């Protein structure tokens, strides 16, 4: 009886302790990351290489997703369209939907899978094959050699990819909406400009940057703390994708509340 009563508090306690331990380890990783920043000659060239790999490697999937996001937004707009509304509103609707929400969130979620899996699997494999231990035993910092370049590459490249995705999605949205409704280029451009604020672009880029940082940090953390061989690498990779995706959605809601909620 007593053990049944104690089970819930014990479970809750373990859950809280587990959360605090994870939080502590992530905080330590962030501290290591800042410490490693002093080794500029190590992380700068590696960041460029990593950014080029992440950017060029992700471009095809980003273009495909952006194109279909634009097409789908346009067709959905056509389906829900009321004839008493001015057609230029379509420009507003498509551009704002893509820039404020679809561009950063869709690309963030897809890259959480693509970049997150890669980082976690790479670092996880390095951990279980003692390559990270080898780096440390050579007196070199894993933060400046492995983590800073990856986190920075994801943080810097996500906004770039989101800008490209936004442009492609808007163009494909314009082409598609013209197939279903009688809207001209001028109407679309007028609508796009009518409610456009420069803050919309900053907001979109702020989201993309924070998503990139979250993907980089979480995936590196998961990979860096991998245990138990190949199975551990699999678990770390899955955890990196799931955690990054959840954090992206949380950040999305948080930034919406903090920055655009009235």
């Amino acid at each position: 009886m007593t053990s049944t009563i104690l089970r819930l508090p014990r479970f809750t306690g373990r859950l809280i302790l587990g959360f605090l331990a994870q939080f502590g380890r992530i905080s330590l990783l962030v501290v290591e990351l800042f410490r490693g920043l002093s080794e500029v000659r190590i992380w700068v060239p590696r960041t460029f290489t990593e950014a080029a790999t992440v950017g060029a490697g992700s471009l095809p999937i980003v273009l495909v997703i952006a194109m279909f996001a634009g097409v789908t937004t346009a067709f959905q707009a056509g389906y829900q369209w009321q004839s008493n509304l001015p057609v230029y509103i379509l420009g507003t609707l498509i551009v704002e939907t893509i820039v404020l929400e679809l561009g950063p969130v869709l690309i963030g979620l897809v890259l959480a899978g693509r970049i997150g899996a890669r980082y976690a699997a790479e670092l996880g494999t390095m951990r279980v094959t003692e390559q990270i231990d080898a780096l440390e035993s050579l007196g070199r910092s894993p933060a400046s050699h492995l983590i800073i370049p990856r986190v920075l590459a994801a943080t810097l490249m996500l906004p770039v990819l989101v800008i490209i995705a936004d442009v492609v999605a808007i163009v494909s949205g314009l082409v598609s909406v013209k197939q279903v409704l009688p809207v001209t280029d001028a109407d679309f451009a007028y609508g796009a400009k009518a409610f456009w604020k420069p803050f919309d672009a900053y907001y979109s880029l702020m989201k993309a940057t924070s998503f990139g940082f979250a993907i980089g940090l979480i995936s590196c953390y998961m990979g860096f703390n991998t245990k138990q061989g190949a199975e551990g690498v699999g678990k770390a990779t899955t955890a990196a994708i799931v955690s990054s995706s959840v954090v992206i959605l949380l950040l999305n809601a948080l930034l919406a509340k903090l920055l655009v909620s009235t």
Partner: protein
Amino acid sequence: MIELRGVKKRFGEQVVLDGVDFEVREGETLALLGPSGTGKSVLLKHINGLIRPDAGKVIVDGLEVATLPRRALSELRTRIGYVFQNGALFDSLSVFENVRLGLSDESKFNDLEYAERRVTECLKLVNLSPDTAKKFPAQLSGGMRKRVGIARAVAGAPKYLLYDEPTSGLDPVNADIVDELVKRLDQELGVTSVMVTHDVRGAFNVADRIALLSDGKIVLQGTPDEFRESEDPKVKAFLERDFEDSFAA
């Protein structure tokens, strides 16, 4: 000099080291023997601070490793070459880049001409041709990987060399080659070495002194002759079993 005093380490419920005391004198080669899974590699990782003890002290050159600040620990590690069990070579880097990373002095690391010369020297030291530098770890055999791992460990001219099972997974011929290599390097470079192994024959062939780790404690530490003459049942059991295995093989 390397000293371990009362070192304890546990992972969860499992006690791995339960008050380990031993020392490695300047210039000697000490073989740390013990059955698989007794914590020999864990003990070795305490020496260069890759693992911190729960209790006790690990002292290298008069410095207590676990309490060293980050920079001092990095500096100490540059004086300790570590040869990992499976080489732990960086897959994405060529053999040249792997060995070059062993150059702890940044100015030497960035001097490409010096780095090329030193990498070639280190590869020759471990009986590998300079052409190996262009290859990637995936293109090397198990024995070659181990030798590249040794080349990387000696590239920075360390004072200490720690070998983690340098002959595990190798056939007897290659194991003998690596044992001879370890012996020759220790003599030529004048380093102080600790070699973790469960290969009794190799340990007797290479080491000046031997320590046996069992049940989290050092059972005996002494010369090969002292080991042969020991009446300790754990020592006798381990030696008899392993010599039988060697002859059976």
